[in-house]
Protein backbone atom coordinates (compact mmCIF):
# COMPACT_ATOMS: atom_id res chain seq x y z
CA UNK A 1 0.00 0.00 0.00
CA UNK A 2 2.98 2.26 0.24
CA UNK A 3 3.20 1.89 -3.47
CA UNK A 4 0.08 3.64 -4.62
CA UNK A 5 -1.27 6.87 -3.14
CA UNK A 6 -4.53 6.23 -1.37
CA UNK A 7 -6.26 8.87 -3.47
CA UNK A 8 -5.70 6.88 -6.64
CA UNK A 9 -7.43 3.89 -5.25
CA UNK A 10 -10.20 6.04 -4.00
CA UNK A 11 -10.69 7.57 -7.41
CA UNK A 12 -10.73 4.11 -8.87
CA UNK A 13 -13.37 2.96 -6.44
CA UNK A 14 -15.34 6.11 -7.06
CA UNK A 15 -15.36 5.35 -10.76
CA UNK A 16 -16.42 1.81 -10.06
CA UNK A 17 -19.18 3.11 -7.84
CA UNK A 18 -20.26 5.57 -10.50
CA UNK A 19 -20.38 2.88 -13.15
CA UNK A 20 -22.46 0.73 -10.88
CA UNK A 21 -24.78 3.58 -10.13
CA UNK A 22 -25.11 4.32 -13.82
CA UNK A 23 -26.04 0.73 -14.36
CA UNK A 24 -28.75 0.84 -11.73
CA UNK A 25 -30.19 3.93 -13.30
CA UNK A 26 -30.17 2.75 -16.90
CA UNK A 27 -30.34 -1.03 -17.02
CA UNK A 28 -33.83 -2.22 -17.83
CA UNK A 29 -33.30 -5.76 -16.74
CA UNK A 30 -33.78 -6.16 -13.03
CA UNK A 31 -31.03 -8.76 -12.84
CA UNK A 32 -28.81 -6.25 -14.60
CA UNK A 33 -29.65 -3.72 -11.93
CA UNK A 34 -28.79 -6.20 -9.22
CA UNK A 35 -25.46 -6.84 -10.91
CA UNK A 36 -24.79 -3.13 -11.01
CA UNK A 37 -25.57 -2.89 -7.33
CA UNK A 38 -22.87 -5.50 -6.75
CA UNK A 39 -20.44 -3.12 -8.40
CA UNK A 40 -21.44 -0.35 -6.02
CA UNK A 41 -20.98 -2.58 -3.01
CA UNK A 42 -17.61 -3.68 -4.27
CA UNK A 43 -16.51 -0.12 -4.72
CA UNK A 44 -17.31 0.52 -1.07
CA UNK A 45 -15.55 -2.68 -0.14
CA UNK A 46 -12.39 -1.56 -1.90
CA UNK A 47 -12.54 1.63 0.11
CA UNK A 48 -12.93 -0.30 3.33
CA UNK A 49 -9.98 -2.53 2.55
CA UNK A 50 -7.78 0.35 1.46
CA UNK A 51 -8.61 2.35 4.55
CA UNK A 52 -7.92 -0.67 6.71
CA UNK A 53 -4.42 -0.53 5.35
CA UNK A 54 -3.89 3.19 5.53
CA UNK A 55 -5.90 5.14 8.03
CA UNK A 56 -7.53 2.59 10.27
CA UNK A 57 -6.75 2.68 13.94
CA UNK A 58 -7.17 -1.06 14.29
CA UNK A 59 -6.15 -3.16 11.30
CA UNK A 60 -9.01 -5.67 11.28
CA UNK A 61 -11.92 -3.30 11.28
CA UNK A 62 -12.04 -2.55 7.59
CA UNK A 63 -11.52 -6.09 6.52
CA UNK A 64 -14.09 -7.50 8.87
CA UNK A 65 -16.49 -4.85 7.69
CA UNK A 66 -15.80 -5.88 4.14
CA UNK A 67 -16.51 -9.49 4.98
CA UNK A 68 -19.87 -8.50 6.40
CA UNK A 69 -20.60 -6.44 3.33
CA UNK A 70 -19.86 -9.39 1.12
CA UNK A 71 -22.21 -11.50 3.18
CA UNK A 72 -24.92 -8.92 2.99
CA UNK A 73 -24.39 -8.59 -0.72
CA UNK A 74 -24.81 -12.28 -1.12
CA UNK A 75 -28.03 -12.25 0.88
CA UNK A 76 -29.31 -9.30 -1.09
CA UNK A 77 -28.72 -11.11 -4.32
CA UNK A 78 -30.41 -14.19 -3.02
CA UNK A 79 -33.44 -12.34 -1.81
CA UNK A 80 -33.45 -10.17 -4.92
CA UNK A 81 -33.37 -13.07 -7.28
CA UNK A 82 -36.05 -14.86 -5.34
CA UNK A 83 -38.31 -11.87 -5.72
CA UNK A 84 -37.38 -11.44 -9.36
CA UNK A 85 -38.20 -15.05 -10.06
CA UNK A 86 -41.54 -14.69 -8.35
CA UNK A 87 -42.20 -11.61 -10.40
CA UNK A 88 -41.14 -13.36 -13.55
CA UNK A 89 -43.53 -16.16 -12.83
CA UNK A 90 -46.55 -14.05 -12.44
CA UNK A 91 -45.85 -11.09 -14.70
CA UNK A 92 -43.61 -12.71 -17.27
CA UNK A 93 -41.25 -9.81 -17.23
CA UNK A 94 -38.02 -8.87 -15.55
CA UNK A 95 -37.82 -5.38 -16.94
CA UNK A 96 -37.96 -2.66 -14.37
CA UNK A 97 -39.92 -0.31 -16.58
CA UNK A 98 -42.60 -2.86 -17.26
CA UNK A 99 -43.73 -3.10 -13.70
CA UNK A 100 -45.73 0.03 -13.07
CA UNK A 101 -49.11 -1.02 -11.86
CA UNK A 102 -48.46 1.05 -8.82
CA UNK A 103 -48.08 4.70 -9.47
CA UNK A 104 -49.31 8.21 -8.66
Amino acid at each position, binding site marked *: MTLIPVEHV*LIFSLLL*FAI*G*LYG*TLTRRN*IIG*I*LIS*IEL*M*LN*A*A*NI*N*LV*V*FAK*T*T*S*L*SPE*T*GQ*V*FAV*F*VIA*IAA*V*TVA*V*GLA*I*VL*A*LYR*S*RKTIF*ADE*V*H*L*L*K*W
Partner: protein
Amino acid sequence: MGPVESLKYFIPELIILCGAFGAFLLDFAVRNKRAVGIFSLFVMAAAAFAMKNPAGETLSLFYGFFHLDVFAHWFRIFALIAVSVTLMLAMDYPPLKNRYEGEFYGLFLFMAFALITVAAANNLLMIFLAVEFVSLLSYLLTGFLKHDPKAKEAAVKYLLFGSVCSGIMLYGISLLYGAAGSIELGHVWQTLRSPSMSALGTVGVLCFFAGLGFKISMAPFHMWAPDVYEGAPTPVTAFLTVGPKALGFAVFTRVLITVFSPSFAHWGVVLTALSMLTMTIGNLTAISQTNIKRFFAYSSIAQAGYILMGLAVFSPLGQNAVMIYLFAYLFTNLGAFAVVCLVEGASGKSNISDYAGLSERSPATAFFMTVFLLSLTGIPPLAGFIGKYYVFAAAIEGKAIALAVVAAVNSAVAAYYYFRIIRVMYLVPKAETQPTFGTSPLYPKIVLWLMSAGVVTLGLFPGYFIKLLFG
Protein backbone atom coordinates in the same frame (compact mmCIF):
# COMPACT_ATOMS: atom_id res chain seq x y z
CA MET B 1 -18.58 -5.83 28.16
CA GLY B 2 -17.73 -9.25 26.87
CA PRO B 3 -20.22 -11.64 25.35
CA VAL B 4 -20.69 -13.79 28.39
CA GLU B 5 -21.41 -10.99 30.82
CA SER B 6 -23.61 -9.41 28.20
CA LEU B 7 -25.94 -12.33 27.95
CA LYS B 8 -27.83 -11.60 31.12
CA TYR B 9 -28.84 -8.25 29.71
CA PHE B 10 -29.66 -9.85 26.42
CA ILE B 11 -32.40 -12.15 27.60
CA PRO B 12 -35.33 -10.42 25.88
CA GLU B 13 -33.58 -10.54 22.54
CA LEU B 14 -32.69 -14.16 23.09
CA ILE B 15 -36.30 -14.90 23.88
CA ILE B 16 -37.29 -13.35 20.59
CA LEU B 17 -34.66 -15.23 18.64
CA CYS B 18 -35.58 -18.52 20.22
CA GLY B 19 -39.21 -17.66 19.73
CA ALA B 20 -38.56 -17.14 16.05
CA PHE B 21 -36.99 -20.49 15.61
CA GLY B 22 -39.67 -21.96 17.80
CA ALA B 23 -42.31 -20.48 15.58
CA PHE B 24 -40.84 -22.12 12.52
CA LEU B 25 -40.79 -25.42 14.35
CA LEU B 26 -44.28 -24.97 15.64
CA ASP B 27 -45.38 -24.24 12.12
CA PHE B 28 -44.44 -27.76 11.17
CA ALA B 29 -46.22 -29.20 14.14
CA VAL B 30 -49.62 -27.58 14.13
CA ARG B 31 -52.30 -27.43 11.54
CA ASN B 32 -54.05 -24.38 12.86
CA LYS B 33 -51.56 -21.69 11.98
CA ARG B 34 -53.29 -19.24 14.20
CA ALA B 35 -51.63 -21.00 17.08
CA VAL B 36 -48.30 -19.86 15.71
CA GLY B 37 -49.55 -16.31 15.78
CA ILE B 38 -50.70 -16.64 19.35
CA PHE B 39 -47.42 -18.26 20.24
CA SER B 40 -45.61 -15.31 18.64
CA LEU B 41 -47.68 -12.90 20.65
CA PHE B 42 -46.72 -14.76 23.78
CA VAL B 43 -43.10 -14.54 22.75
CA MET B 44 -43.42 -10.81 22.37
CA ALA B 45 -45.12 -10.55 25.70
CA ALA B 46 -42.41 -12.61 27.35
CA ALA B 47 -39.73 -10.46 25.77
CA ALA B 48 -41.46 -7.33 26.89
CA PHE B 49 -41.73 -8.78 30.35
CA ALA B 50 -38.05 -9.53 30.41
CA MET B 51 -37.04 -6.09 29.31
CA LYS B 52 -35.61 -3.79 31.89
CA ASN B 53 -35.12 -0.13 31.59
CA PRO B 54 -31.40 0.51 31.97
CA ALA B 55 -32.47 3.76 33.55
CA GLY B 56 -29.65 6.20 33.20
CA GLU B 57 -26.74 3.83 32.80
CA THR B 58 -25.49 2.79 29.41
CA LEU B 59 -24.75 -0.85 28.79
CA SER B 60 -22.21 -1.52 26.04
CA LEU B 61 -22.98 -5.14 25.43
CA PHE B 62 -20.82 -7.32 23.22
CA TYR B 63 -17.89 -4.98 23.16
CA GLY B 64 -20.11 -2.06 22.38
CA PHE B 65 -21.86 -3.60 19.40
CA PHE B 66 -25.11 -3.67 21.28
CA HIS B 67 -25.45 -0.30 22.85
CA LEU B 68 -28.27 -0.46 25.33
CA ASP B 69 -29.33 2.83 26.84
CA VAL B 70 -32.65 4.44 27.64
CA PHE B 71 -32.97 5.60 24.10
CA ALA B 72 -32.46 2.12 22.72
CA HIS B 73 -34.73 0.70 25.38
CA TRP B 74 -37.68 2.79 24.37
CA PHE B 75 -37.14 2.06 20.75
CA ARG B 76 -37.13 -1.64 21.41
CA ILE B 77 -40.38 -1.23 23.28
CA PHE B 78 -41.59 0.66 20.26
CA ALA B 79 -40.50 -2.21 18.03
CA LEU B 80 -42.28 -4.71 20.21
CA ILE B 81 -45.51 -2.77 20.09
CA ALA B 82 -45.29 -2.36 16.35
CA VAL B 83 -44.59 -6.01 15.74
CA SER B 84 -47.20 -7.28 18.17
CA VAL B 85 -49.88 -5.12 16.66
CA THR B 86 -48.90 -6.25 13.21
CA LEU B 87 -49.15 -9.83 14.34
CA MET B 88 -52.62 -9.24 15.66
CA LEU B 89 -53.68 -7.59 12.46
CA ALA B 90 -52.20 -10.39 10.41
CA MET B 91 -54.06 -13.04 12.37
CA ASP B 92 -57.34 -11.86 10.94
CA TYR B 93 -56.10 -10.91 7.52
CA PRO B 94 -57.88 -13.15 5.05
CA PRO B 95 -55.37 -13.13 2.14
CA LEU B 96 -52.73 -14.54 4.42
CA LYS B 97 -54.74 -17.62 5.25
CA ASN B 98 -53.09 -20.80 3.98
CA ARG B 99 -50.21 -18.89 2.55
CA TYR B 100 -47.25 -19.72 4.78
CA GLU B 101 -48.95 -18.00 7.66
CA GLY B 102 -46.67 -19.63 10.20
CA GLU B 103 -43.55 -18.50 8.43
CA PHE B 104 -44.98 -15.05 8.27
CA TYR B 105 -45.14 -14.87 12.04
CA GLY B 106 -41.68 -16.31 12.34
CA LEU B 107 -40.25 -13.76 10.01
CA PHE B 108 -41.93 -11.06 12.00
CA LEU B 109 -40.24 -12.27 15.12
CA PHE B 110 -36.97 -11.98 13.29
CA MET B 111 -38.06 -8.53 12.32
CA ALA B 112 -38.54 -7.67 15.95
CA PHE B 113 -35.00 -8.79 16.64
CA ALA B 114 -33.70 -6.83 13.68
CA LEU B 115 -35.41 -3.68 14.86
CA ILE B 116 -33.92 -4.04 18.28
CA THR B 117 -30.45 -4.34 16.84
CA VAL B 118 -31.08 -1.17 14.90
CA ALA B 119 -32.12 0.60 18.06
CA ALA B 120 -28.98 -0.52 19.81
CA ALA B 121 -26.58 0.08 16.94
CA ASN B 122 -23.94 2.57 17.83
CA ASN B 123 -21.25 2.23 15.18
CA LEU B 124 -21.06 2.33 11.43
CA LEU B 125 -20.82 -1.41 11.03
CA MET B 126 -23.82 -2.21 13.17
CA ILE B 127 -25.83 0.53 11.61
CA PHE B 128 -25.22 -0.84 8.17
CA LEU B 129 -25.78 -4.38 9.19
CA ALA B 130 -28.91 -3.81 11.20
CA VAL B 131 -30.47 -1.52 8.67
CA GLU B 132 -29.82 -4.05 5.95
CA PHE B 133 -31.31 -6.74 8.14
CA VAL B 134 -34.50 -4.78 8.52
CA SER B 135 -34.52 -3.93 4.85
CA LEU B 136 -34.09 -7.48 3.68
CA LEU B 137 -36.88 -8.70 5.90
CA SER B 138 -39.05 -5.87 4.72
CA TYR B 139 -38.51 -6.78 1.07
CA LEU B 140 -39.47 -10.34 1.81
CA LEU B 141 -42.54 -9.48 3.82
CA THR B 142 -43.68 -7.03 1.19
CA GLY B 143 -43.56 -9.70 -1.44
CA PHE B 144 -44.98 -12.32 0.84
CA LEU B 145 -48.31 -12.65 -0.92
CA LYS B 146 -47.10 -14.23 -4.09
CA HIS B 147 -50.46 -14.50 -5.73
CA ASP B 148 -50.78 -10.76 -5.74
CA PRO B 149 -48.94 -9.16 -8.69
CA LYS B 150 -49.02 -5.83 -6.92
CA ALA B 151 -47.22 -7.27 -3.94
CA LYS B 152 -44.45 -8.57 -6.11
CA GLU B 153 -44.09 -5.37 -7.96
CA ALA B 154 -43.90 -3.61 -4.64
CA ALA B 155 -41.25 -6.00 -3.41
CA VAL B 156 -39.16 -5.53 -6.51
CA LYS B 157 -39.33 -1.78 -6.32
CA TYR B 158 -38.60 -1.84 -2.68
CA LEU B 159 -35.66 -4.10 -3.18
CA LEU B 160 -34.12 -2.14 -6.01
CA PHE B 161 -34.61 1.25 -4.43
CA GLY B 162 -33.46 0.02 -1.06
CA SER B 163 -30.38 -1.72 -2.35
CA VAL B 164 -29.22 1.28 -4.32
CA CYS B 165 -29.78 3.53 -1.34
CA SER B 166 -27.90 1.23 0.96
CA GLY B 167 -25.14 1.02 -1.65
CA ILE B 168 -24.83 4.75 -1.52
CA MET B 169 -24.95 4.70 2.25
CA LEU B 170 -22.27 2.07 2.39
CA TYR B 171 -20.08 4.16 0.16
CA GLY B 172 -20.53 7.08 2.48
CA ILE B 173 -19.81 4.89 5.48
CA SER B 174 -16.62 3.72 3.88
CA LEU B 175 -15.49 7.29 3.34
CA LEU B 176 -16.33 8.25 6.92
CA TYR B 177 -14.53 5.22 8.17
CA GLY B 178 -11.52 6.15 6.10
CA ALA B 179 -11.50 9.66 7.38
CA ALA B 180 -11.80 8.65 11.01
CA GLY B 181 -9.96 5.39 10.91
CA SER B 182 -12.65 3.94 13.11
CA ILE B 183 -16.23 2.85 12.94
CA GLU B 184 -17.10 4.38 16.29
CA LEU B 185 -19.46 7.29 15.93
CA GLY B 186 -17.52 9.21 18.55
CA HIS B 187 -14.32 9.02 16.55
CA VAL B 188 -16.07 10.02 13.40
CA TRP B 189 -17.42 13.04 15.22
CA GLN B 190 -13.96 13.98 16.46
CA THR B 191 -12.54 13.78 12.95
CA LEU B 192 -15.23 15.70 11.20
CA ARG B 193 -14.75 18.66 13.48
CA SER B 194 -11.56 19.64 11.75
CA PRO B 195 -12.27 22.10 8.93
CA SER B 196 -10.20 20.22 6.38
CA MET B 197 -12.52 17.28 6.75
CA SER B 198 -15.71 19.20 6.37
CA ALA B 199 -16.08 18.59 2.63
CA LEU B 200 -15.56 14.90 3.03
CA GLY B 201 -17.88 14.92 5.99
CA THR B 202 -20.52 16.52 3.85
CA VAL B 203 -20.28 13.86 1.19
CA GLY B 204 -20.13 11.07 3.69
CA VAL B 205 -23.02 12.28 5.74
CA LEU B 206 -25.19 12.99 2.76
CA CYS B 207 -24.52 9.46 1.53
CA PHE B 208 -25.56 8.35 4.97
CA PHE B 209 -28.72 10.41 4.63
CA ALA B 210 -29.53 8.54 1.45
CA GLY B 211 -29.67 5.24 3.24
CA LEU B 212 -31.48 6.50 6.30
CA GLY B 213 -33.65 8.83 4.24
CA PHE B 214 -34.82 5.80 2.34
CA LYS B 215 -35.79 4.11 5.59
CA ILE B 216 -37.75 7.03 6.90
CA SER B 217 -39.10 7.90 3.45
CA MET B 218 -37.60 11.33 3.40
CA ALA B 219 -37.77 13.28 0.18
CA PRO B 220 -36.21 12.81 -2.30
CA PHE B 221 -35.74 9.21 -1.20
CA HIS B 222 -39.41 8.70 -0.55
CA MET B 223 -40.70 7.63 -3.89
CA TRP B 224 -40.69 3.95 -3.27
CA ALA B 225 -42.97 4.32 -0.31
CA PRO B 226 -46.38 4.83 -1.93
CA ASP B 227 -45.92 1.98 -4.36
CA VAL B 228 -44.64 -0.38 -1.73
CA TYR B 229 -47.26 0.53 0.84
CA GLU B 230 -50.01 0.08 -1.67
CA GLY B 231 -48.72 -3.23 -2.89
CA ALA B 232 -47.74 -4.84 0.39
CA PRO B 233 -50.20 -6.92 2.43
CA THR B 234 -52.08 -4.51 4.66
CA PRO B 235 -50.65 -5.66 8.01
CA VAL B 236 -47.20 -5.36 6.49
CA THR B 237 -48.02 -1.89 5.25
CA ALA B 238 -49.17 -1.00 8.71
CA PHE B 239 -45.90 -2.20 10.03
CA LEU B 240 -43.78 -0.56 7.36
CA THR B 241 -45.30 2.84 8.00
CA VAL B 242 -44.20 2.75 11.61
CA GLY B 243 -41.55 0.13 12.35
CA PRO B 244 -38.67 0.65 9.92
CA LYS B 245 -39.48 4.32 9.79
CA ALA B 246 -39.22 4.77 13.53
CA LEU B 247 -36.02 2.81 13.70
CA GLY B 248 -34.64 4.82 10.82
CA PHE B 249 -35.35 7.85 12.95
CA ALA B 250 -33.71 6.23 15.90
CA VAL B 251 -30.52 5.79 13.94
CA PHE B 252 -30.83 9.22 12.48
CA THR B 253 -31.16 10.70 15.92
CA ARG B 254 -28.25 8.75 17.24
CA VAL B 255 -26.04 9.70 14.34
CA LEU B 256 -27.01 13.33 14.40
CA ILE B 257 -26.84 13.75 18.11
CA THR B 258 -23.59 11.96 18.65
CA VAL B 259 -21.91 12.88 15.41
CA PHE B 260 -23.13 16.38 15.16
CA SER B 261 -23.19 18.32 18.26
CA PRO B 262 -24.55 21.85 17.92
CA SER B 263 -21.26 22.90 16.32
CA PHE B 264 -22.56 21.17 13.24
CA ALA B 265 -25.64 23.28 13.22
CA HIS B 266 -25.26 24.19 9.59
CA TRP B 267 -26.59 20.75 8.91
CA GLY B 268 -29.74 22.12 10.35
CA VAL B 269 -30.24 24.04 7.14
CA VAL B 270 -30.09 20.89 5.08
CA LEU B 271 -32.38 19.08 7.43
CA THR B 272 -34.76 22.00 7.48
CA ALA B 273 -34.88 21.95 3.71
CA LEU B 274 -35.36 18.21 3.67
CA SER B 275 -38.06 18.45 6.27
CA MET B 276 -39.96 21.11 4.37
CA LEU B 277 -39.58 19.22 1.13
CA THR B 278 -40.71 15.96 2.65
CA MET B 279 -43.82 17.26 4.33
CA THR B 280 -44.79 19.37 1.36
CA ILE B 281 -44.43 16.59 -1.15
CA GLY B 282 -46.21 14.13 1.07
CA ASN B 283 -49.10 16.45 1.65
CA LEU B 284 -49.41 17.64 -1.89
CA THR B 285 -49.56 14.17 -3.28
CA ALA B 286 -51.80 12.72 -0.65
CA ILE B 287 -54.64 14.99 -1.67
CA SER B 288 -55.54 13.18 -4.84
CA GLN B 289 -55.20 9.60 -3.73
CA THR B 290 -57.97 7.10 -4.20
CA ASN B 291 -56.44 4.08 -2.50
CA ILE B 292 -56.42 4.27 1.23
CA LYS B 293 -53.11 2.50 1.67
CA ARG B 294 -51.43 4.74 -0.84
CA PHE B 295 -53.09 7.63 0.87
CA PHE B 296 -51.58 6.65 4.17
CA ALA B 297 -48.26 6.20 2.44
CA TYR B 298 -48.18 9.82 1.43
CA SER B 299 -49.51 10.80 4.79
CA SER B 300 -46.66 8.91 6.40
CA ILE B 301 -44.19 10.72 4.17
CA ALA B 302 -45.64 13.99 5.35
CA GLN B 303 -45.48 12.83 8.95
CA ALA B 304 -41.82 11.98 8.42
CA GLY B 305 -41.36 15.56 7.37
CA TYR B 306 -42.83 16.80 10.63
CA ILE B 307 -40.66 14.43 12.63
CA LEU B 308 -37.60 15.69 10.81
CA MET B 309 -38.38 19.11 12.23
CA GLY B 310 -37.29 17.79 15.57
CA LEU B 311 -33.96 16.73 14.16
CA ALA B 312 -33.45 19.88 12.16
CA VAL B 313 -33.16 22.08 15.20
CA PHE B 314 -30.45 20.09 17.00
CA SER B 315 -31.71 20.44 20.50
CA PRO B 316 -32.61 18.11 23.33
CA LEU B 317 -36.17 19.26 22.94
CA GLY B 318 -36.06 18.33 19.28
CA GLN B 319 -34.67 14.94 20.12
CA ASN B 320 -37.46 14.33 22.58
CA ALA B 321 -39.91 15.61 20.04
CA VAL B 322 -38.87 12.90 17.62
CA MET B 323 -39.51 10.22 20.15
CA ILE B 324 -42.83 11.55 21.37
CA TYR B 325 -43.98 12.11 17.85
CA LEU B 326 -43.01 8.60 16.91
CA PHE B 327 -44.96 7.13 19.76
CA ALA B 328 -47.97 9.23 18.94
CA TYR B 329 -47.63 8.21 15.34
CA LEU B 330 -47.27 4.58 16.31
CA PHE B 331 -50.59 4.44 18.10
CA THR B 332 -52.36 6.54 15.56
CA ASN B 333 -51.18 4.93 12.40
CA LEU B 334 -51.47 1.38 13.60
CA GLY B 335 -54.98 2.16 14.77
CA ALA B 336 -55.84 3.61 11.42
CA PHE B 337 -54.48 0.56 9.70
CA ALA B 338 -56.50 -1.67 11.93
CA VAL B 339 -59.52 0.04 10.45
CA VAL B 340 -58.11 -0.40 6.98
CA CYS B 341 -57.70 -4.09 7.71
CA LEU B 342 -61.25 -4.36 8.99
CA VAL B 343 -62.71 -2.64 5.97
CA GLU B 344 -60.57 -4.68 3.66
CA GLY B 345 -61.66 -7.77 5.48
CA ALA B 346 -65.30 -6.84 4.97
CA SER B 347 -65.19 -5.57 1.42
CA GLY B 348 -61.95 -7.03 0.10
CA LYS B 349 -60.94 -3.67 -1.24
CA SER B 350 -59.01 -0.73 0.02
CA ASN B 351 -60.24 2.18 -2.01
CA ILE B 352 -61.29 5.35 -0.30
CA SER B 353 -64.65 5.04 -1.97
CA ASP B 354 -65.19 1.81 -0.08
CA TYR B 355 -65.44 3.91 3.06
CA ALA B 356 -68.62 5.61 1.90
CA GLY B 357 -71.25 5.54 4.55
CA LEU B 358 -69.02 3.68 6.95
CA SER B 359 -70.55 5.68 9.76
CA GLU B 360 -73.82 3.93 9.10
CA ARG B 361 -72.51 0.53 8.23
CA SER B 362 -70.25 0.31 11.23
CA PRO B 363 -70.48 3.35 13.47
CA ALA B 364 -67.81 2.17 15.89
CA THR B 365 -65.25 1.57 13.18
CA ALA B 366 -65.96 4.94 11.64
CA PHE B 367 -65.68 6.57 15.02
CA PHE B 368 -62.33 5.00 15.71
CA MET B 369 -61.10 5.94 12.28
CA THR B 370 -62.18 9.48 12.94
CA VAL B 371 -60.26 9.55 16.16
CA PHE B 372 -57.14 8.35 14.42
CA LEU B 373 -57.53 10.74 11.54
CA LEU B 374 -58.05 13.63 13.92
CA SER B 375 -54.96 12.58 15.74
CA LEU B 376 -53.04 12.53 12.46
CA THR B 377 -54.40 15.99 11.71
CA GLY B 378 -53.11 17.10 15.06
CA ILE B 379 -56.34 18.01 16.73
CA PRO B 380 -56.11 18.18 20.50
CA PRO B 381 -56.47 16.47 22.84
CA LEU B 382 -55.19 13.48 20.91
CA ALA B 383 -51.73 12.02 20.67
CA GLY B 384 -51.00 13.50 17.27
CA PHE B 385 -51.44 16.95 18.66
CA ILE B 386 -48.88 16.33 21.36
CA GLY B 387 -46.42 15.20 18.72
CA LYS B 388 -47.14 18.25 16.61
CA TYR B 389 -46.92 20.45 19.61
CA TYR B 390 -43.54 19.02 20.42
CA VAL B 391 -42.04 19.51 17.00
CA PHE B 392 -43.49 22.99 16.73
CA ALA B 393 -42.13 23.80 20.12
CA ALA B 394 -38.73 22.52 19.12
CA ALA B 395 -38.83 24.58 15.95
CA ILE B 396 -39.87 27.72 17.73
CA GLU B 397 -37.32 27.20 20.45
CA GLY B 398 -34.69 26.80 17.77
CA LYS B 399 -35.93 29.97 16.11
CA ALA B 400 -36.71 28.04 12.94
CA ILE B 401 -39.63 30.30 12.13
CA ALA B 402 -39.72 29.52 8.43
CA LEU B 403 -39.81 25.83 9.13
CA ALA B 404 -42.59 26.28 11.65
CA VAL B 405 -44.64 28.36 9.25
CA VAL B 406 -44.20 25.90 6.41
CA ALA B 407 -45.19 23.11 8.76
CA ALA B 408 -48.25 25.04 9.88
CA VAL B 409 -49.39 25.59 6.31
CA ASN B 410 -48.73 21.96 5.60
CA SER B 411 -50.78 20.88 8.56
CA ALA B 412 -53.69 22.85 7.23
CA VAL B 413 -53.36 21.16 3.86
CA ALA B 414 -53.09 17.84 5.60
CA ALA B 415 -56.30 18.55 7.45
CA TYR B 416 -58.02 18.76 4.12
CA TYR B 417 -57.14 15.31 2.99
CA TYR B 418 -57.58 13.64 6.34
CA PHE B 419 -61.01 15.16 6.42
CA ARG B 420 -61.64 13.79 3.00
CA ILE B 421 -61.74 10.37 4.56
CA ILE B 422 -63.95 11.60 7.36
CA ARG B 423 -66.17 13.19 4.77
CA VAL B 424 -66.46 9.94 2.88
CA MET B 425 -67.28 8.04 6.03
CA TYR B 426 -69.83 10.45 7.41
CA LEU B 427 -71.17 12.63 4.65
CA VAL B 428 -71.26 10.35 1.66
CA PRO B 429 -74.15 7.92 1.75
CA LYS B 430 -73.30 4.29 1.32
CA ALA B 431 -73.66 2.75 -2.07
CA GLU B 432 -76.22 0.02 -2.59
CA THR B 433 -73.61 -2.47 -3.62
CA GLN B 434 -71.49 -2.18 -0.53
CA PRO B 435 -71.50 -5.14 1.77
CA THR B 436 -72.71 -4.72 5.27
CA PHE B 437 -70.34 -5.26 8.09
CA GLY B 438 -70.63 -8.58 9.78
CA THR B 439 -69.21 -9.05 13.22
CA SER B 440 -65.71 -7.71 13.14
CA PRO B 441 -62.90 -10.12 13.84
CA LEU B 442 -61.49 -10.07 17.32
CA TYR B 443 -57.88 -9.09 17.04
CA PRO B 444 -58.15 -5.96 14.92
CA LYS B 445 -60.86 -4.90 17.31
CA ILE B 446 -58.54 -5.31 20.24
CA VAL B 447 -55.98 -3.31 18.32
CA LEU B 448 -58.52 -0.59 17.75
CA TRP B 449 -59.30 -0.31 21.40
CA LEU B 450 -55.72 -0.45 22.53
CA MET B 451 -54.47 2.04 20.01
CA SER B 452 -57.28 4.48 20.59
CA ALA B 453 -56.65 4.19 24.30
CA GLY B 454 -53.04 5.01 23.58
CA VAL B 455 -54.00 7.94 21.40
CA VAL B 456 -56.33 9.40 23.98
CA THR B 457 -54.11 8.80 26.99
CA LEU B 458 -51.07 10.22 25.31
CA GLY B 459 -53.17 13.16 24.28
CA LEU B 460 -54.66 13.81 27.67
CA PHE B 461 -51.77 12.95 29.93
CA PRO B 462 -48.63 13.56 27.93
CA GLY B 463 -46.85 14.48 31.14
CA TYR B 464 -46.86 10.87 32.23
CA PHE B 465 -45.39 9.66 28.96
CA ILE B 466 -42.77 12.36 28.89
CA LYS B 467 -41.69 11.42 32.35
CA LEU B 468 -41.60 7.78 31.44
CA LEU B 469 -39.52 8.30 28.32
CA PHE B 470 -37.12 10.97 29.43
CA GLY B 471 -37.19 10.68 33.18
